[in-house]
């Protein structure tokens, strides 16, 4: 075994100098160890010839002086050693430095999104409830009767969902099942009828429980987009629950109308048609888009039922006149479609939860509102990197502008919209419009379709009334007006004139030009896929003669 050589220890001053110097090098441990060993060897070599320890110490002091300022020397050594690094290490270090700078910049960009908190000033659910109630007494609200009707309604037999929609197409077993179902649900249907007699309808939305963010209105809380989404989900759950039952109720009423028609109770059948339309109209004029769409569908069901009654029954002129008055009253009391106040309230709720509030109507976007503030996903990154998110006022302005345009357009019929010159403002840079815009457009489309249905129903009642009194059909719709049987010439909102009417060998033909706004001479509409559909995109919407 080789014996490890021993050397005289360095004088204390020299050891301390080397250690101090190496410490000041402040570089990798391995490098520092190398420098230490090298300097130690230097001192040992230099002092190896000294005879006494005194001489060693004197020479060591001289050497230390020759080395000079240890701080300066350490810096030079560090610089030299750093230059010794391989190119790939240097490259990696540069890369890491650039990455660190990028991260730092990103942290700076992102950090401001986490500084501050929103201020919840508006209890949106309470605002929604109050805006629809408008201080009116609850006894005027049809909603309570509808709730009662829904609670009394029993689940229909499977025949109702799987069997034919029309009683006239059912076999005896199915008819008996329908009769039993209707008999059982008369109390529910009575409440439905009762609801239709009420002057108003407004929904009620239960508050989110628990809702700590609303307990301190006006104080700083920490909600965000998720809270707003949770609130929207809560509201939608309530809507969906009530919508489901109301739809079942409407279908039950449709069977009831068919049954009454078969039984010859035409006056009751028509009264129930009016009730169906009225309840549909109630829902179509108030609430969220989904409620409006269901309301439109229920009212459309009422119109289809009315036309079926008028098709199969011989209705006397008194009943026709009173039915016309009821329909006309509903039409006149129509609120404009697309009351998008609720959707606007929801987006404003999102804004108040995702932006800070400087007390002057402005504020800065918070992390939870990044998606809301960005005009698109690509601009999200750009906005983030350029510190350039729109502020609260800009977003609010965009929302207001959007809804002002929606409101302006809601008053224009499909024909007017089609005819108006292209609007340069139709282009936008706000993702929200892409999301909500099509939904609003769809509800508007359904609304105008329902209005056209109503005009057609009024025209058909007028025509039948004319026939009952004159013994012949009118040659034009103007004759109905001249005879005082209609309040105005029934309009076709898909053209710039009245509904198309002509006498035929079998009776008469009444239709709207429909979505394509072209007069196809009464060719029944088909969908884009070519399937027959009353409100198909191509062809005319034929109201009379009635087709199954």
């Amino acid at each position: 075994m080789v014996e490890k050589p021993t050397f005289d220890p360095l004088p204390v001053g020299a050891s301390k100098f080397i250690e101090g110097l190496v410490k000041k090098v402040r570089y990798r441990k391995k490098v520092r160890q190398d420098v230490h060993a090298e300097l130690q060897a230097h001192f040992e070599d230099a002092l190896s010839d000294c005879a006494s320890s005194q001489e060693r110490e004197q020479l060591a002091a001289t050497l230390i002086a020759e080395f000079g300022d240890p701080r300066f020397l350490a810096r030079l050594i560090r610089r030299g050693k750093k230059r010794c690094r391989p190119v790939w290490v240097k490259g990696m270090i540069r890369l890491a430095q650039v990455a660190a700078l990028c991260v730092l910049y990103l942290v700076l960009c992102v950090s401001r999104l986490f500084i501050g908190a929103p201020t919840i000033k508006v209890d949106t659910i309470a605002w929604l409830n109050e805006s629809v109630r408008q201080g009116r007494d609850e006894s005027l609200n049809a909603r309570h009767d509808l709730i009662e009707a829904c609670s009394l309604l029993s689940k229909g037999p499977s025949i109702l969902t799987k069997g034919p929609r029309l009683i006239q197409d059912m076999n005896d077993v199915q008819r008996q099942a329908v009769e039993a179902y209707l008999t059982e649900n008369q109390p529910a249907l009575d409440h439905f009828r009762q609801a239709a007699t009420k002057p108003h309808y407004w929904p009620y939305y239960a508050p989110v429980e628990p809702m700590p963010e609303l307990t301190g209105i006006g104080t700083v809380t920490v909600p965000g987009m998720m809270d707003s989404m949770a609130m929207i989900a809560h509201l939608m759950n309530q809507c969906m629950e009530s919508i489901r039952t109301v739809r079942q109720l409407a279908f039950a009423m449709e069977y009831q109308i068919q049954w009454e028609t078969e039984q010859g109770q035409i006056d009751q059948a028509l009264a129930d048609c009016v009730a169906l339309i009225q309840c549909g109209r109630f829902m179509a004029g108030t609430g969220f888009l989904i409620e409006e769409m269901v309301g439109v569908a229920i009212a459309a069901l009422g119109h289809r039922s009315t036309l079926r009654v008028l098709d199969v029954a011989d209705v006397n002129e008194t009943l026709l006149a009173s039915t016309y008055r009821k329909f006309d009253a509903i039409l006149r009391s129509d609120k404009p479609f697309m009351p998008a106040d609720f959707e606007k309230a929801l987006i404003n709720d999102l804004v108040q939860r995702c932006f800070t509030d400087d007390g002057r109507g402005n504020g800065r976007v918070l992390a939870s509102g990044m998606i809301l503030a960005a005009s698109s996903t690509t601009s999200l990154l750009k906005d983030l990197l350029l510190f350039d998110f729109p502020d609260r006022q800009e977003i609010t302005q965009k929302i207001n502008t959007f809804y002002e345009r929606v409101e302006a357009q809601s008053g224009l019929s499909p024909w007017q919209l089609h005819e108006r010159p292209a609007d340069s403002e139709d282009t936008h840079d706000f993702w929200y419009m892409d999301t909500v815009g099509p939904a609003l457009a769809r509800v508007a489309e359904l609304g105008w379709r329902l209005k056209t249905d109503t005009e057609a129903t009024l025209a058909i009642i007028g025509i039948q009334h004319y026939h009952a009194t004159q013994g012949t059909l009118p040659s034009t719709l103007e004759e109905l007006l001249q005879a005082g049987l209609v309040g105005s010439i029934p309009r076709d909102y898909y053209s710039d004139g009245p509904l198309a009417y002509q006498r035929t060998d079998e009776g008469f033909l009444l239709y709207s030009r429909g979505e394509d706004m072209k007069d196809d001479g009464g060719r029944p509409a088909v969908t884009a896929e070519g399937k027959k559909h009353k409100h198909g995109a191509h062809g005319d919407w034929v109201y009379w003669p009635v087709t199954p």
Partner: protein
Amino acid sequence: MKFESQLLKGIAPTVVLEILSRGPMYGYELCKAIEQRSNEILSLGKGTLYPLLYNLEAKKLVGAQWEVAESGRKRRYYAITSKGKTQLDGQKSQLKELVKGLDFVFGGALSSTR
């Protein structure tokens, strides 16, 4: 003799390379060799020597490796590389021209003192 540091700074790498061109050396040995070869005229400060060696190593003009001497001491030996040799040749030529030029400037006073 004490030289102006700026004057020495420019030629110190050349001196070190020249000494190392005759064989590998460790720091202390190099220091002594410079003094001996220059007849005690040139003396590289210790504070300058090691940073200079590390810089030459970074430029790959010299290579370094640890070795254990016969005495048992562990030392870091520096040796000139082929790149260092090329550089040394170039610098030597330049120095010759410089001395020649300076000699002219000083009217032959430099060569007469040799």
